[in-house]
């Protein structure tokens, strides 16, 4: 019995060593300046208002913020409003610069948006698609010379780990591979604000972890990263901050364990859950049953 217990402790230590803990920003030595402030935001589709006078505490550079909530809560609407894809009223300021009313070209230098759905009938290679993201409008950060743009595209593919797919056509990739290629296109222009709309929806477990690790590393580069997720356990594991939305309003806000509570989930989703700590100390949500 003692031998088995010893083996179990060794195994847990080995796993703990592999799992990279989320380093506090102060200890990591990073000092990031910049924030995104949203005040009095109104947005919707046609006559249907989804967000009404929405105020959100500032998003900070270097943080991963997860937006979660039931369907039609307004998560994607908020992301699309930030991406300039909707008519909005109110204020969205990044480092004091107003994003509302900004031209598409100016916004492309600040905001990168990865849509939820990726077209699947495109006869373009992954590399061509990434370069088209750079060439679609003037890109000031890198000179317009082809070799530097190609180099930049290759660097991004290498960082994301899909260099082997560079020459494959998007129409031949799996849904998950297309989603990761979409992430490459989103970050290649070096946006300061990265908006990812359900980036893990088509991914297997391994690639979900990969994308969340990448999101964290992009944040650590000095970006604001905002991700819409339905998987609350991913949010608990990887987010610095979680905003729970319901019917266009904020139902929960704070660090993951402050915002994803049994009470909040019961109120917003109508489901009984328990938040427990796994043996490695990470919070984990267990779904019991829907409320009667």
């Amino acid at each position: 019995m003692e031998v088995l217990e010893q083996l179990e402790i060794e195994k847990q230590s080995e796993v703990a060593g592999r799992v990279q803990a989320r380093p506090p920003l102060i200890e990591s030595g990073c000092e990031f300046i910049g924030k995104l402030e949203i005040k009095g935001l109104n947005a919707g589709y046609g006559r249907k208002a989804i967000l009404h006078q929405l105020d959100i505490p500032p998003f900070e550079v270097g943080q991963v913020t997860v937006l979660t909530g039931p369907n039609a809560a307004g998560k994607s609407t908020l992301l699309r409003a930030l991406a300039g894809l909707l008519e909005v009223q109110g204020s969205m300021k990044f480092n004091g610069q107003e994003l509302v009313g900004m031209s598409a070209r100016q916004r492309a230098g600040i905001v990168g948006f990865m849509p939820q759905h990726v077209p699947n009938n495109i006869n373009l290679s992954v590399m061509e698609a990434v370069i088209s993201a750079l060439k679609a409008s003037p890109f000031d950060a890198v000179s317009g010379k082809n070799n530097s743009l190609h180099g930049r595209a290759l660097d991004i593919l290498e960082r994301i780990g899909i260099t082997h797919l560079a020459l494959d056509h998007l129409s031949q990739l799996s849904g998950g591979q297309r989603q990761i290629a979409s992430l490459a296109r989103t970050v290649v222009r070096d946006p300061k604000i990265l908006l990812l709309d359900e980036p893990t929806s088509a991914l297997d477990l391994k690639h979900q972890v990969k994308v969340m690790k990448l999101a964290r590393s992009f944040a650590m580069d000095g970006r604001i990263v905002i991700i819409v997720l339905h998987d609350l356990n991913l949010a608990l594991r990887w987010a610095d901050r979680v905003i729970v939305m319901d019917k266009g309003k904020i139902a929960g806000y704070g660090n993951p364990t402050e915002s994803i509570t049994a009470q909040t989930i019961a109120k917003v989703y109508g489901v009984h859950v328990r938040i427990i700590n796994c043996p490695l100390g990470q919070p984990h949500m267990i779904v019991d049953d829907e409320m009667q």
Partner: protein
Amino acid sequence: MDLATQVIVWEVRMPYSIMALLVGASLSIAGCEMQTIMNNAMASPFTLGVSAAASFGAALAIIIGVSLPGVGTEWMVLANAFLFAFGATMLLQTLSSLKGAGPEGLVLFGIALVFTFNAFTGILQYMASAEALQQFIFWSLGSLTKANWENIRFLLILIVAIVPFSLASAWKLTALRLGEDSAKSFGVNVGRLRFLSLLRVSILTAGSVSFVGTIGFIGLVGPHIAKLLVGEDHRFSLPASILSGALIMSLASIASKALVHGAIIPVGIVTSLIGVPVFIILIFNKRSK
């Protein structure tokens, strides 16, 4: 070369052949842009009713002699063709931006436009004199026999003026293939891109229709062959569409002379015979996906 041969070669055959190249090129590149802007593989000036609208405008000029105030007689056909082609593309653009329209809805609306403008043209034909009617019917079938060096010069100027703007938009059009949301996030003004692209489509379609009548399916088949060969990077698919459209139209014009010994079938009939099976294949291909 004796004088008779010279006249046949330089005044009849050469303009016929060159007009085939230019019309094929302009309709094909127009179709390529249309398929990207409308996000619809079945889009082309013919299938979505733009050619039918241009034909109706031309019919107004040929049969009744009606056009915009201030437009000279020699420009009436072209001006009317452009006006109605542009109006049809704006209608299609409005529909394509409606939620729930979908690619199939757009094609159905295009078919509705074809029937509508054909009906209006039918009314004009009913009212026309015998001479005007004969002139118009032969024109409406799509024929290269009235090609001359003046028309070629004008169409060439149109193509040389318009195509560079298409090629300059190549990266934006490629980005649009990745989805409208993605293109906007890359900094593309999608609304402006659509408007200018449809303007180019209208001009190229009107130019072709006003000189040779309604030529079907070149704008559909040409871009598909180009994309099969070079992919959807518009730096290559736009020039490839020009070449493939020119080639298909040339082959169709040869077939129109060779099919019936001693007679020239209107080339519009030949392109429709080629194009309809391709159109059906595309529909079934889309459904199976």
